[in-house]
């Protein structure tokens, strides 16, 4: 039962991505985080990428 609950918690963690320009000014870097964070959701970041 605990395993199923943990799995559900994992399922519910939304993926967030934040794309930035790297210090060299030409390459991009994308930070992926999962769970409740203060960045945009995947849907909101669509315009940025």
């Amino acid at each position, binding site marked *: 039962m605990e*395993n199923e609950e*943990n799995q559900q918690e994992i*399922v519910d963690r939304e993926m967030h*991505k934040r794309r930035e320009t790297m*210090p060299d000014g030409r390459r*991009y*870097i994308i*930070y992926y*985080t999962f769970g409740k964070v203060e960045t945009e959701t995947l849907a909101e970041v669509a315009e940025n990428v």
Partner: protein
Amino acid sequence: MSELRWNPLLGEWTVTATHRQDRTFFPPPGYCPLCPTIAGGFPTEISEPSYDIVVFENKFPSLMPDPPEPAVDGSDLYPVRPAQGVCEVVVYTPDHNSSLADQPVSQIYKLMQVWQDRFKDLGELDFVEYVYIFENKGEAVGVTLPHPHGQIYAYPFIPPRLVQKVNQFREHKARTGNNLIASLLHVEKKNGERIVAENESFTALIPFFARYPFELHIYPNTHAEALTDLTLAQLRDLASIFKQVLSAFDRLFDVSFPYIMSMNNRPSDGSDYSFFDFHVEFYPPMRTATKLKYLAGSEAGAGMFINDTLPEEKASELRRLIETVVW
């Protein structure tokens, strides 16, 4: 200097990328470019102190979205073209002294979702025809940065091996009416000797035709052309089977097992690939605890592999080392 040069003998492109000669090579401790940057420390590629998974463009790419014009003139016999494409590095974890096998299955599941997202994003670029997700692990396969990571190459053409596979998949469908992976699984599940692990969505096996002693394939149990066709539940199952087989690999000789991981999705050129199935292949070079399989004359020169072992025996060895995944 970077360009695509045509090989008229094989009918395929080669990338020349001379800037890659100077790429980072076994950096000393504290200078790993894939570790998070510590305040006051060496500035790495990753300025954030923490992340789940990070993806960035390779500093020494073989292909670039906006490449320079070829440095050499082409000809009818030797066409050249700009080396356009995308090369990304996918860093699996902030933990330098780790591996994908060491990760909790929840982290591997996150990686599956990231790979799915990258496949979608890169496949939508108008100059990309194939998105190739792969991992080189271990010095034995030529890795120069030990921090756990993989790569993604978005090619401007379908690479030769995938052309060959697509043709095989298409021919099988045309001849039998069935998808090739479904046909293989039908035989393998009936036989059972080469299956290493399986769950609701995937089957891991050492193929009948294995070229490396521990070559391992993961096939979807139901039709899926690409990662983007998989549901979150199927991605969880894929993460579980990855965790099982990678951990079993490490138990074989009690070493962090070197391998090349090759993820085969359908091409991204917009054509119909309903006859094709997503699958993953692992090519581990170790044949015993102390010996490697090298690609020598027959393999490298003639394209014919010689396997000194029986797939059925190797599958049995690996299957005994499979453990249940705990989420």
